[in-house]
């Protein structure tokens, strides 16, 4: 397939009705899971357009991740959503596990493909909010982080605690496994990024993303944090997104920013929106060609594309609502936005003209 970011357009507008907090595509690409301020997770089946509500959390969920065998649905075999008029996944659901972490600190296990998934395991993982959940490339470990300033590792198979990584001195906002599976990075409110060796549990190095943090002395409070994080497929770059240049924390006056680290030398590169947009960057990903895509919002939302080589903001898409999270489809050419207006917007970046999906 050929991606043309300038062709990015809305493919589907999936309504939930209550403001959304987070969104993720499952590994097969058939489902989009979106979490909401009503404490539910909704599963949109992109094939059948069926919407199922997952009840189990009693607070908001922002961290979601999946344990699935990729061999069952090889990524390469998933044709473009647009080309197939909706979806390339098989009609027969492939079993997988959804992990979701909420703001009461609970980590829930679900069988994501069931007709009506119910949590089959609940782990009281953190004191206070869980802000992010990630699954290791080998699918053996689950990592979580939260407001207790801790990073924790769990057995994906049985929920056993594997390790606790201590060292952050503020709320831990995000984490991501390195594609090699040997390292984990975690990032906090103050813009400190810690790079952990998973074999030893030791801190290997720290990256400075303090540009994402400010103590607003006028209000007497901290603003910032790494709101989205992603490695590129080769594992040579790490992208983080958040808010910077904050002049008024309590009104959210500041600019979205992506900091792109070259992992070889740890040097940061700042990717800024071309327009003078005010708001927070909430999600970041790498497209297969290395293009960095970020999404965020203030009054309304934006999707920005950057060429990582020269940090140029090559294209920008206006989103009609604050984009509170962004997910990249396994096909690499489809994006989802979790909207504050209660809708999930699915965007296609495929060069081919959009064909409305058939029912």
């Amino acid at each position, binding site marked *: 397939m050929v991606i043309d970011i300038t062709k990015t357009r809305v493919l589907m507008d999936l309504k939930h009705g209550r403001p959304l907090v987070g969104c993720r595509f499952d590994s097969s690409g058939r489902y989009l899971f979106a979490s909401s301020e009503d404490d539910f997770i909704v599963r949109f089946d992109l094939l059948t357009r069926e919407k199922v509500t997952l009840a189990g959390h*009693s607070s908001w969920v922002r961290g979601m991740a999946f344990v699935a065998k990729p061999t069952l649905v090889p990524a390469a075999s998933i044709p473009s959503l647009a080309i197939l008029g909706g979806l390339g996944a098989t009609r027969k659901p492939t079993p997988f596990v959804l992990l979701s972490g909420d703001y009461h600190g609970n980590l829930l296990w679900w069988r994501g493909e069931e007709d009506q998934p119910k949590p089959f395991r609940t782990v009281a993982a953190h004191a206070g909010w869980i802000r992010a959940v990630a699954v290791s490339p080998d699918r053996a470990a689950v990592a979580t982080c939260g407001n207790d300033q801790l990073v924790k590792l769990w057995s994906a198979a049985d929920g056993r605690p594997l390790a606790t990584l201590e060292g952050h001195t503020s709320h831990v906002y995000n984490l991501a496994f390195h594609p090699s599976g040997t390292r984990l990075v975690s990032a906090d409110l103050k813009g400190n990024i810690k790079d952990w060796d998973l074999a030893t549990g030791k801190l290997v190095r720290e990256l400075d993303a303090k540009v994402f943090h400010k103590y607003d002395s006028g209000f007497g409070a901290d603003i910032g944090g790494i709101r989205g994080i992603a490695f590129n497929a080769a594992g040579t770059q790490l992208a983080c997104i958040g808010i910077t240049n904050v002049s008024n924390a309590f009104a959210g006056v500041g600019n979205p920013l992506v900091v792109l680290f070259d992992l070889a030398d740890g040097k940061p590169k700042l990717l800024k929106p071309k327009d003078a947009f005010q708001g927070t960057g909430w999600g970041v990903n790498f497209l297969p060609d290395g293009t960095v895509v970020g999404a965020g919002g203030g009054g309304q939302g934006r999707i920005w594309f950057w060429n990582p080589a020269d940090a140029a903001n090559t294209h920008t898409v206006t989103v009609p609502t604050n984009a509170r999270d962004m997910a990249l489809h396994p096909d690499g050419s489809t994006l989802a936005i979790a909207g504050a207006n209660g809708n999930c917007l699915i965007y296609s970046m495929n060069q081919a003209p959009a064909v409305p999906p058939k029912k």
Partner: protein
Amino acid sequence: MNICDYACGTADHTVNRRLFLGGGAAGLAGFAGMTTPAAARELKSVQKRMLVIFLSGGVSQLETWDPKPNTDTGGPFRAIPTSVPGIHMSELLPEAAKRMHLLTLVRGINTKEDEHGRGATIMLTGRRTEPGLVYPHVGAVAAKLLTDKDAELPGHIQITPRGGGGFNKEDAAFLGPKFASVTLGDGKPPADLLRPATLTTDAEREAFRRKLNDRFAKSRRSAQTEAYTESYEQAAKVVARADAFDASREDPKAADRYGRHDFGRHMLLARRLLEQGVTFVKVSHTNYDTHHENFDFHIEQLGEFDRPFAMLLDDLKERGMLESTLVVVMSEFGRTPRINDRYGRDHWSKAWSVAMAGCGLKAGAAVGKTNANGTAVTDREVNGGHLFHTYFRALGMDPTKNFYPAGRPVPIADPKAAAIHEILA
């Protein structure tokens, strides 16, 4: 401008000004009648004090005293049980929750004013803003009504998060500058309180000043010249007690308990000032104006507020001071039940809460109710006027009595409102 309002024409209001100036206004004897030493002594023995903790910007009632978890407006936090069965608070106040049996919650506040300045006016003066008329702040009223005539320290002190100190003559309005607040910016002592280093002693020049005044007073004196010369003696007393303003003299263990941050230090200073006999202390904690990221910010701000607040309650209780100290936690207003698209909550005065403690208020009680998702008051709606009445009833005063600025009767509290009697002892 309704200074006389509907209460006009009642017996209290027709008191002739000359009669009052002549001391004949019976209505004032209750608080201005400290004319006999016996009365003054009695008052001193039960000296009442007031502490206001002002959460600037408008704290969210939903993240504090009136949580609505798992509703469309509730936000992500839990409601946790408190030391009083049946009453819940937001999980952001774990320490306060353990002390609910000392607290009184007023959950049905509707102040109908969503602008910061005017909201603050309502909460601090018990009245809405009126052009051409400025009412004294609660601290000035408390200082005026409660401060012993012989008190050495100012009766009205506010501790602000930062910035300069100074004397704010605005907030006493017609009560006069004597009752205006002394501001301790970041808890620092008032300007010029401490003798400058270059002035090793001022005993000699003070003696000379007294000599000059005595000589002048032999042939010329008036109430004003007396007040002027006396102000130096009073200032000397305050200077001599400059330690009262210095929280660093408190036990370091107390400082640890309160928390090693600005608000912890300011609350410890408040305790010290109250113990030293200051009538009214207001501590401001900034800031709660969370139009953006309401939840993250409330975690941080309330995380700072909760413990020192609880420690101060414990200390007042332990020292037997809570019975005579009225504690009020207030804001300009609350925050919208609706969560905006930036995870913020906006200004909201229609249904919010205040927490109080001490001074004989019914402890462990919650008065007033809001509906299931907190968008409206459903029971016992009150406004700033009711609260103002309640404060002064609790402090043992009759807020329906009048002040007489320039001879005109002005009721202490808004005559359109009355005290919340259910929570009064």
